């Protein structure tokens, strides 16, 4: 078990390192000189030289890479070439907003999808089960932003119950924070719940046909009890994998939703940084997103080890 965890941790760290090299290299290969961006196209070669030296761009690439990467564990992403400010406070603040959005959306999606998907599986031959299944199919086909706009049209513009856009930090006004959170989270979660419901349904349907579920029934467990005590944990395994993958797509979804609801998250930060050709900020945000994805996968791996006693043996 310890060996299995150690192996996965090592793999996680190595992948992180490889990713960081890729992100760094990719940013350097792209055309565009940060010094020129900072000074404008009319600047003299001399001034450009000076600015490059100031930014440290004249040093060897390996040194630049080390300079950047060694700061990340300490939460230091360096200074923006464009604004001349520390990148970390801005990016981390934006990230926290996106995290709130993504995590709440996932929690809501799972909380809806597990019971709904199980219900659809148990009653897959009845009208209500088929209805849930069909509805989730429709949900999968709806893009996030459309769900967002429909929700705004209905609950903000139509009924006027909730604010249509913008953001309120939780420390500032908790009630306002929640009311601003509801619509974007609902937009993200609705589509996500539809996708997850389908996976949960498939998974539960599959385990209901397993021999050991029949054994449980033969012991005298009712259908419901067999499902709760034996089925769900088994059904959770494939759902867990999908949840990991979906979390990643949710981050992408959040970038779009942040635009729809004018929320200052990491997605809008990325778009602004790209527009401003702020190389180091883009690099840092991309790295942060990659780290988030890898961390999710690592956690899923660990959860697998805990949930499934067979995985520790297999690898």
């Amino acid at each position: 078990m310890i060996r299995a965890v150690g192996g996965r941790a090592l793999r996680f760290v190595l992948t992180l390192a490889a990713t960081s090299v890729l992100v760094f290299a990719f940013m350097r290969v792209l055309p565009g000189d940060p010094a020129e961006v900072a000074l404008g196209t009319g600047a003299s070669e001399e001034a450009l030289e000076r600015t490059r030296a100031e930014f440290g761009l004249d040093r060897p690439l390996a040194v630049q890479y080390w300079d950047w990467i060694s700061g990340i564990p300490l939460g230091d992403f360096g200074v923006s070439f464009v604004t001349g400010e520390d990148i970390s406070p801005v990016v981390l603040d934006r990230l926290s907003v996106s995290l709130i959005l993504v995590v709440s959306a996932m929690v809501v999606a799972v909380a809806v999808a597990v019971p709904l998907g199980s219900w659809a599986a148990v009653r897959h031959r009845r009208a209500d089960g088929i209805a849930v299944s069909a509805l989730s199919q429709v949900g999968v086909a709806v893009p996030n932003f459309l769900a967002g706009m429909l929700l705004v049209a209905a609950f903000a513009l139509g009924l006027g119950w909730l604010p249509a856009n913008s953001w309120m930090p939780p420390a500032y006004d908790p009630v306002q924070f929640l009311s601003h959170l509801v619509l974007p989270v609902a937009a993200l979660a609705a589509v996500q719940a539809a996708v997850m419901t389908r996976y949960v349904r498939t998974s539960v349907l599959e385990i209901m046909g397993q021999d050991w579920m029949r054994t449980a029934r033969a012991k005298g467990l009712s259908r419901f009890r067999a499902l709760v005590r034996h089925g769900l944990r088994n059904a959770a395994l494939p759902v867990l994998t999908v949840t990991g993958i979906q979390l990643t797509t949710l981050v992408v979804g959040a970038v779009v939703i942040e635009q729809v609801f004018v929320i200052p998250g990491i997605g809008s930060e990325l778009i602004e940084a790209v527009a401003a050709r702020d190389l180091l900020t883009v690099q840092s945000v991309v790295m942060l997103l990659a780290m988030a994805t890898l961390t999710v996968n690592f956690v899923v791996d660990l959860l697998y080890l805990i949930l499934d006693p067979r995985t520790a043996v297999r690898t």
Partner: protein
Amino acid sequence: MTAAETREAGTGADGPLVRVSGLRVDSGPTPLVHPLDLTIGAGERVGLIGESGSGKSLTALSLIGLLPDELDHGGSIALRGASDDLLAAPERELCGLRGRRVSMVFQEPMTALNPLMHVGRQVGEVLTQHRTLTGRRAVRARVLELLESVHLSDPERVLKAYPHQLSGGQRQRVMIAMAFANDPDLLICDEPTTALDVTVQRQVLDLVDEAVRSRGTSLLFVSHDLAVVAEACDRVLVMQDGRVVESGPVPSVLTAPQHPYTARLLRASRLEPASGRSARSTDGGTPGPSAAAPDTHDATPGGPAHGPASDPVVRVRDLHRTYRSGRRTVHALRGVDLEVHGGERLGIVGESGSGKTTLLKILSGLDRPTSGAASVCGVDVTRPTRRALRPLREGLQTVFQDPMGSLDPRMSVREIVEEPLIGRRDTRTRKHRHELVAESLRAVGLEPEAAERHPHQFSGGQRQRISIARSLVTDPDVLIADEPVSALDVSVRAQVLALLNRLVEERGLTLVMVSHDLGVVRHLCDRIVVMRDGRVVESGPADRVYDDPEDGYTRALHEATPSLDRVLARKRGQGR
């Protein structure tokens, strides 16, 4: 009063334990079980014999109220002491009966236990579910006792083990412990030993027998294997296509069958040496015309058509194969020597873990040995290069065990059979290939039109024919058959064995067949090699090894194999 006491008191007084009247199971408009009557007395052991699709498992499932939802059913099932008809009883009442008064042991022990739950908890659950026992300590103690009662050697370890840490035999013991936890009135066993090795099957059969007899439990034992049923039961019902065609006491039904189907089953399950193989025997049987004295054959195991001088087609010398599985080192082969001459039929017998599959893999160039020499058709298969393997791929073909899993469901039969020909120079034209496919299909008794269909449209036996057609299409010299009939029903098994026998004879093939079943191997092969733990423990002419085994393990294997004749002889002895 305990269940056992109730049973004692009530024996005979108020009729049978179970009375099934007019049980009917339909899938939509298709009847699966035609109206069926069945009674099981207290302490009686009833067998249900049938092939796949006969409705025997559905009948068994309806007795514990676990018929699949999508099936319609009718009739009634009365269980003594239960107020309602089991088929109409509310789910709540059925839950109270299952696992308490009626228990079931299923066929596939590998999948019958929840993979994510400790075995001890799974056994304990049947106690807590019915509130037979409460309190963790008491349950734990009782579970240990139960695990011990099924002769599991280290109950403490089993208690905390996950199913994947136990062997198939151990898992089936756990299932039996679970079934007996609440001392049920009726135990239903659905093919409980079909997935097990011969010696493990013997242990499990003995265990069921012991448990049932000592507690006076009634038994419904479902199996396709006549010998197994004969051993476990007093009375037997034979089912065919959803109907009971014959029933009665075991000795009379299985010695003087009244129904032609029963007679056919009996014939099919008695495997005498096939006509094609050279009949050699040491116990005064009629030797074939071409057979030499057994002694010379022991020394020089050559086929009848080949003198001792002919080079062996398969030659294996001191073959070792060792691999690592996690932290364990597995010695799959520990020095195997083997020779098969052209036209000879060699049978390799062994249980799981004996190394027989590894040996076959090496022979067909799919695995490499750790050390030793092996050549097939003159090709060195220990360090095969792609080029060197080419003649081997044509000269040697394999028929696999599971006709359901070894054919790609998305390919048509033509694509499947044709595949070994693709890329060969001499079969470039499509027309030529189609001719070969048609010829091959005809050879295995299928219409050439079958080529346009897909595997799922065929029965198990037909699929095995397709598999054989695929292996014949390149016109190989050596045919390797890995448990070719162990997934088939007895009557289908007889047909496929007859087909193999005819093809080997007509085409002068060299046959290497692997099986766990001594009888099947003796039926088809000239010579038998018995393997255990990666070694050859005995080898010799088929009849000699079968009738007069020298090695202790071969003898144990032989004795463990249920034999109809032996069982019937014993039952007759008891009867008088």
